[in-house]
């Protein structure tokens, strides 16, 4: 205990001494020597941090971490603003056009195709009520909108993968992944949601992923993506409650333009929507057992009424609309919110939930589950929660407490996590030294492995524990993914692109196997695995019906290189074949494929 608090004190001191760092060039101070024994070997520690604080090792990463010193590398990752990432930023700027546009800009440029189609049909309606066929100009507009929506989706998903593969700020990407899942939104919630995703990821989540929790929470609460996804944008005072501004009077939506405020037609009905208020408490802050009541849910929702966003024609973005706001007095988690207040009601509600002790514990638990193990030790969670509380929700320091702990470097934590599909795909690409790729293919594969990007429907996000990711279908898809990569069908990733692979191509089998184990399995494979990679023979297969595991002949053609693009025709047109039949693999690529499909590779 003493040791722990000493360590924590040392860390706070280290963090404070780096006060004005943001603009300064990296000035590596000697990282403090670990004040505890680390159970993992030095090699294991390097592999461990590269699989937990990064999306796996790239070909030269192990050497880099060793040269820099493990603890100094960790410290740099905790300060992403000091890590040069210009190459990735240049790649994104050169290859993507929608990532930096606001939701309003995107929606104005490419309106939702369904809405556009209805507008066109309404305009073309004949006197009899039947719609006339669409003219050429209208068809072109509709096609353009459809292509735009596809482009937006492709880019936001593709850039997620590209950043995770290529960013030097790996811990920041890991934490971005964590918070995007904690504050999960779903791209098919409605036709407008897609326009809001790039803004959400790049402006709301990533800049705050290692910042203050309250700042992150506030940015999420005011984001178009979350306001839309959990319906708060249309939540307003119930008819029995006083409004901050009278309907039809000044202070409503039209007030800024000088007219009398009329509720927009879609808001003339309806009232309080508890959806965001509930998930704010249950999923975003206190946690389901965090000690709140249904009345707290209602009052959180009431405090946040009027938190909405402008339409695209008004430039979009968050706005507080007094005429929608419930101006009555409220009690939230024992705190009184006085009557007659405006936006400060919601701000105070966020203050209250962000600083609630249950929130510290809940966030600490989730972070430790992500970074350490599916069942994180209670003592570690308690220390992380204490850091969270002491630093007023400083996420960098909370993460530091977790990853500089004996528990993080314990044997029990090593390779104890099952990779998510996103981690499988990204870590494979990184192991092979893949270049970031502009196609949608890698993102599609993540989806085919069961974790479509921005595709989790319910607000609780993707599962955090391994048992949820491991089942019959999942493991088969992962094995086939390994074969797809080994066959050279992951764009940007050559199956022989890892370190020294060119030399190994013609080397003896044992050198090949050792090279693959080093590149893909972190230099650590069980003797059984090594033996199977070595011999090219399955001792068990002799007893088995040798045809039993051979692939079935595909009934309908071969899924071509392009995956979806090359989806086969008969007998089931339109059924995507994620992993078409692959040619038999030989030599080094076969060893790569086996390693990617091995049980070891499923862990991090």
């Amino acid at each position, binding site marked *: 205990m003493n040791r722990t608090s000493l360590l924590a004190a040392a860390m706070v001191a280290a963090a404070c001494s780096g006060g004005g760092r943001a603009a300064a060039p990296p000035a590596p101070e000697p990282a403090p020597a670990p004040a505890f024994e680390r159970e993992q070997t030095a090699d294991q520690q390097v592999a461990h941090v590269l699989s937990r604080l990064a999306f796996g090792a790239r070909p030269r990463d192990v050497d880099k971490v060793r040269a820099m010193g493990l603890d100094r590398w960790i410290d740099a990752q905790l300060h992403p603003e000091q890590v040069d990432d210009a190459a990735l930023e240049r790649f994104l700027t050169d290859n993507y056009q929608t990532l930096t546009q606001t939701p309003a800009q995107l929606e104005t440029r490419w309106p939702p195709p369904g809405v556009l189609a209805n507008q066109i049909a309404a305009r073309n309606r004949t006197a009899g009520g039947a719609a006339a066929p669409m003219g050429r100009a209208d068809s072109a507009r509709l096609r353009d909108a459809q292509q735009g929506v596809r482009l937006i989706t492709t880019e936001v998903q593709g850039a997620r993968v590209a950043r995770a593969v290529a960013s030097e700020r790996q811990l920041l990407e890991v934490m971005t992944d964590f918070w995007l899942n904690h504050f999960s939104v779903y791209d098919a919630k409605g036709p407008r949601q897609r326009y809001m995703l790039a803004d959400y990821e790049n402006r709301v989540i990533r800049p705050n992923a290692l910042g203050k929790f309250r700042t992150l929470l506030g940015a999420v609460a005011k984001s178009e993506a979350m306001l839309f996804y959990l319906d708060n944008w249309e939540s307003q005072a119930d008819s029995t409650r006083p409004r901050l501004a009278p309907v039809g009077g000044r202070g409503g939506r039209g007030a800024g333009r000088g007219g009398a405020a009329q509720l927009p037609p879609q808001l003339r009905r309806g009232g309080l929507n508890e959806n965001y208020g509930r998930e704010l408490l249950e999923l975003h802050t206190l946690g389901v057992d965090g000690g709140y009541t249904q009345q707290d849910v209602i009052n959180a929702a009431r405090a946040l009424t009027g938190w909405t966003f402008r339409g695209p024609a008004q430039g979009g973005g968050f706005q507080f609309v007094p005429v929608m706001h419930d101006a009555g007095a409220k009690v939230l988690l024992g705190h009184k919110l006085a009557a007659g207040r405006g936006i400060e009601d919601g701000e105070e509600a966020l203050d209250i939930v962000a600083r609630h002790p249950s929130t510290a514990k809940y966030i600490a638990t989730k972070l430790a589950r992500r970074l350490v193990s599916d069942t994180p030790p209670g003592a570690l969670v308690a220390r992380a929660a204490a850091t969270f509380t002491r630093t007023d929700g400083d996420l960098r320091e909370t993460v530091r407490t977790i990853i500089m702990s004996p528990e993080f470097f314990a044997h029990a934590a090593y390779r104890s996590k099952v990779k998510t599909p996103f981690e499988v795909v990204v870590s494979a690409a990184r192991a092979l030294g893949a270049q970031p790729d502009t196609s949608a293919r890698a993102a599609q594969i993540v989806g085919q492995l069961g974790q479509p990007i921005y595709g989790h429907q319910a607000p609780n996000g993707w599962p955090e524990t391994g048992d949820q990711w491991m089942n019959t279908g999942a493991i088969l898809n992962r094995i086939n993914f390994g074969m797809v990569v080994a066959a050279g069908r992951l764009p940007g990733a050559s199956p022989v692109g890892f370190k020294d692979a060119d030399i190994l191509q013609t080397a003896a089998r044992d050198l090949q196997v050792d090279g693959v184990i080093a590149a893909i399995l972190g230099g650590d494979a069980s003797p059984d695995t090594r033996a199977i990679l070595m011999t090219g023979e399955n001792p068990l297969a002799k007893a088995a019906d040798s045809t039993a595991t051979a692939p079935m002949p595909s009934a309908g053609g071969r899924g071509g290189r392009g995956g979806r693009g090359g989806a086969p025709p008969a007998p*089931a047109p339109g*059924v995507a074949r994620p992993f078409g039949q692959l040619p*038999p693999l030989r030599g080094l690529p076969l060893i790569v494929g086996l390693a990617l499909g091995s049980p070891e590779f499923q862990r991090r």
Partner: protein
Amino acid sequence: MQRRAFVKSGALALVTMGLSPSFLRRAAFGLDLRGAAKGKVLICLFQRGAADALNVVVPFGERAYYQWRPTIAIPAPGLAARSALDLDGFFGLHPSLAPLKPLWDRQMLAPIHAVGSPSSTRSHFDAQDYMESGTPDLKGTSDGWLNRYLATSGTCEQCHPSPFRAVAMAPQTPRILQGGAPAVAMDSLDQFAVRTGGDAAARIEALYRTGSADIIHGAGTEMFEAVKMLRAANPQRYQAEHGAGYPRSQFGQRVRQIAQLIKSDIGLEIAFADVGGWDTHVNQGGATGQLAGRLDDFATSIAALVTDLGDRMEDVVILTMSEFGRMAKQNGNGGTDHGHAGAMFVIGGHVKGGTVFGRWPGLEREQLYEGRDLALTTDFRTVFAEVTARHLGAPSVGALFPGFDSSRPLGIFG
């Protein structure tokens, strides 16, 4: 627990691998195949996009129906070349549902009208979410109700459920099957194999059969057993029986593969497929047109499935659903906008069909929900609970639909 128990039986299966496929299956899964062959199957078919229930099960006996829908209503039976197929003198089926009419006549088809979610939402997303989670207006539910059924029913320490107990013919596990119990999602049966030749598959299998008995090795071992089971069942050589003709559409092919799985006797209990194209805001058509085309594919696929399964339909129930119905009044674009209550079909050999279930609320303005939509008289959970309890024999429906009183079934199963 269960997983570990299975790793053991997997090792047993290794020893018996050279023996006949049926013995292998029995050994590997501890299944009483006679029991499994007789096992009950529920096939859920989801019409995504909100099917227009008023033009699917047509209330031709309602004057107001024709007033709300001057150009898209389905004519009463006999009043046009294509008109409603009379069921009971008041309701009729859309003419494109003709393939289902014989099922009505054989009392295998039970339509339910004015059924759906009590939630007032008209959002596709929200309404599908509620229909699949089984918890209307509760967004936080993380699992689907079919998964809750799997998790609470039919598992025991001694027996091991088939890896194909729950299968979604879909690229991803749908919300309704998400949760703690395993479910397999696949686009097509032939995809369920290691997709490369040579000895790669055998060597990968060896990787999973050695080493520790953790969840990853367990899932891998189980997967290779499942691949062998499916292969032994040989779905490639599948021939539909009794002259069943499946459409070549995606939906038709998915439904066909569900029949294959059922006839393969590999322990399928829950199957799921979905089909889109029901969001008919524009140019919906009437007895012919857009919706008629969707219904044609839908009905032909289901009829082929029933024909193909033959006597097996005694153990099979097909349940169709869509997130909500559509407005009573047609809109300005020859279509219909989002509404409230809808219609469902329950089809099966032991279904007490030949009756349209559910209280009919009427279509006069004051009878409509919020003055515009078909009102709800049956909560969808009533139907789901009845199907799971009466067909699948679920012991505790309360756990599937927390807080819902399912004590008043419609009597779909007599």
